[in-house]
């Protein structure tokens, strides 16, 4: 039955063979995962957010498990954009995988330069602009908390890469007015939106009576945040239907561990979904989510995943 469901998706011009991707920071650049799930069958490998220069990340402990989730405070550790372009992207191309490259920066200029170096690389279907990483030393640098800062980054990236590159703005749920931030991103040049990044959290060890993370705060992810992700996707889609937000594809992320989780996000308005923390628990998850989603769409007599996008909003 599932074979009859058309699973390819079009994200503002980026054609993906499947609506199921990995989530940034949860799959490195795909290579480690490939032993456990066929990365070439995924819609895309969303690579870990990359900055201009190599970056050590933050001190450890960087991880604290919480009920149905975890906090992380990695701090964007990575080898820098040139290593990604020279080393990781060619591997993905050779492997037949599609890349969505997550880019980050300390200011709009760094975002723009990283994006420029990545945008022309083979095999890159889209850029995801990570304006919402909570693991920066300064909360003032969480651009997605402010519409003006978000627009500054998206505008700089758009000017840097030209009109033809698909840009997804990755949003934070830790905001008062999500739609206002989304509108700022789309008006400044984003082609679509990814919702959501992690929620900022703290976990205190009652034995030591100290925070469990070395830097106190971390990003909360995993099934615990799935209802927040579904709410955010719902809100964005509802705003589009109400004419309060330009029409644009939304990529759902947050707590996806099964086909049912993915279907929730699709029905709420996501054109595609990302599998993040569930990969840590089981690296075979992305492939399984895609199979389960296709089967569930078939059971519900959808002929394409596109037909199910936002279906829960029907009158």
């Amino acid at each position, binding site marked *: 039955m599932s074979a009859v469901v058309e699973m390819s998706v079009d994200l503002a011009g980026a054609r993906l063979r499947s609506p199921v991707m990995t989530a940034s920071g949860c799959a*490195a650049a795909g290579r480690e995962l490939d032993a456990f799930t066929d990365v070439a069958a995924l819609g895309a490998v969303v690579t870990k957010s990359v900055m201009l220069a190599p970056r*050590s990340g933050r*001190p*450890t402990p960087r991880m604290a498990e919480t009920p149905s989730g975890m906090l*992380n405070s990695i701090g964007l550790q990575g080898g820098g954009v040139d290593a990604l372009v020279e080393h990781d992207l060619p591997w993905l191309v050779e492997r037949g995988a599609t890349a969505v490259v997550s880019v980050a920066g300390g200011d709009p200029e760094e975002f723009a330069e990283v994006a420029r170096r990545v945008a022309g690389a083979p095999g890159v279907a889209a850029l995801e602009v990570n304006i919402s990483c909570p693991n920066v030393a*300064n909360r*003032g640098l969480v651009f997605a908390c402010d519409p003006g800062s978000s627009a500054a980054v998206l505008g700089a990236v758009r000017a840097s890469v030209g009109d033809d590159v698909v840009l997804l703005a990755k949003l934070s749920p830790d905001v008062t007015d999500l739609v206002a931030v989304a509108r700022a991103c789309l008006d400044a040049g984003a082609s679509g939106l990814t919702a959501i990044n992690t929620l900022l959290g703290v976990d205190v060890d009652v034995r030591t009576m100290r925070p469990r993370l070395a830097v*106190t*705060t971390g990003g909360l992810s995993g099934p615990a945040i799935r209802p927040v992700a579904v709410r955010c996707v719902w809100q964005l889609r509802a705003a589009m239907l109400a004419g309060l937000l330009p029409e644009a594809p939304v990529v759902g992320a947050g707590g996806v561990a099964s086909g049912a989780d993915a279907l929730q996000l699709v029905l709420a308005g996501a054109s595609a979904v990302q599998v993040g923390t569930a*990969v840590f628990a089981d690296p075979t998850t992305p492939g399984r989510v895609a199979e389960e989603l296709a089967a569930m769409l078939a059971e519900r007599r959808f002929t394409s995943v596109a037909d199910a996008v936002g279906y829960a909003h029907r009158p």
Partner: protein
Amino acid sequence: MNDGSAHRSGHGSGRGPGEGAVVDDEGAPGPGAVSERARVLSAEPVGAYARLVLAAPRSAATARPGQFAACSTGDSGMLLRRSFSISSADPATGELVLVVAAAGPGTARIAALREGDVLPVLAPLGRPFALPPAGEAVVLVGGGYGAAPLAWLGAALRARGSSVDLVVGAGDARRLLAQDTPAGTASAPVDRVHVATEDGSAGVRGRVTDVLTGLLAEPAGGSAASPTGSRHVLACGPMAMLRAVHEVAGAAGAATQLATEESMACGIGVCMTCVLPVVGDDGRTRMLRACTEGPVFDGDRLRWDAIGAPAPQRPPGTGARVPEDAVGAPAPLPPAGGDAVQPGSVPGSAPGARS
């Protein structure tokens, strides 16, 4: 991708990944690592621990001493796997043996498994111990359940003609492991076993380093009267013990390979939570993943000055800071004064004095 290490072939420890390498030169899990639903063939208490014999033929086919298995806690609401050093693996029978310490609710669920239960495992993960040159004397040191793989490792070493001393220690006799390892006969995995407990309830009263100091003081080459003369120390246990072992070994001119035990989420190299500061062949320090570039590290390459966060912030021996000279380390902070903290910042998420 790891602090520029992607530019290098090999991870810079100066030693290969060992025989039957299951880790490629990028630090990714190699073709040996599989996801497998292992069936529990037997479960029995061993002192304070549980010994699980698993039917896991695909994992057992390639596992080497020093590698680990990441085990699911099932439908527990706890998302992350628990990692255990593989105690032994037999490709012929397909059996994989783990020793589990119930340290918290997740590990307690695994320790409570019974014959016939199913345990999802990812294994074998990480780099194994590199076997020292054939015939050279080796001392193995295990703290608590860290001793789990050492009899297996000893057998591999003795098969190559090495003389093997096994030193096991713990706080008390209940938390010892491998103290009954057969020794001295032709078929035994080790030549001699030495036991130390801090409370004196088994073996000598003291720590493994007290025993190790004596063994390494013997002249190189060894003899019946002075048995070891080893210049190779391979150890597995808590970080504080590994540090002490490395100091004692270093003072005696012996090289160490240390199997570290870092908190990790994924076990396969994608999450970046289990990093340690390690010096590469180029002399530069990078935060390397213990799961794929370890868990076994050359003790000389670990940045001990940055490992073990200063008290009283954390329990002794936990965590590592990023050395100021590490690749990609944050730029030095401006003088204290709080002017770097912007409106909306969360106390504690501002730049920390230790990073």
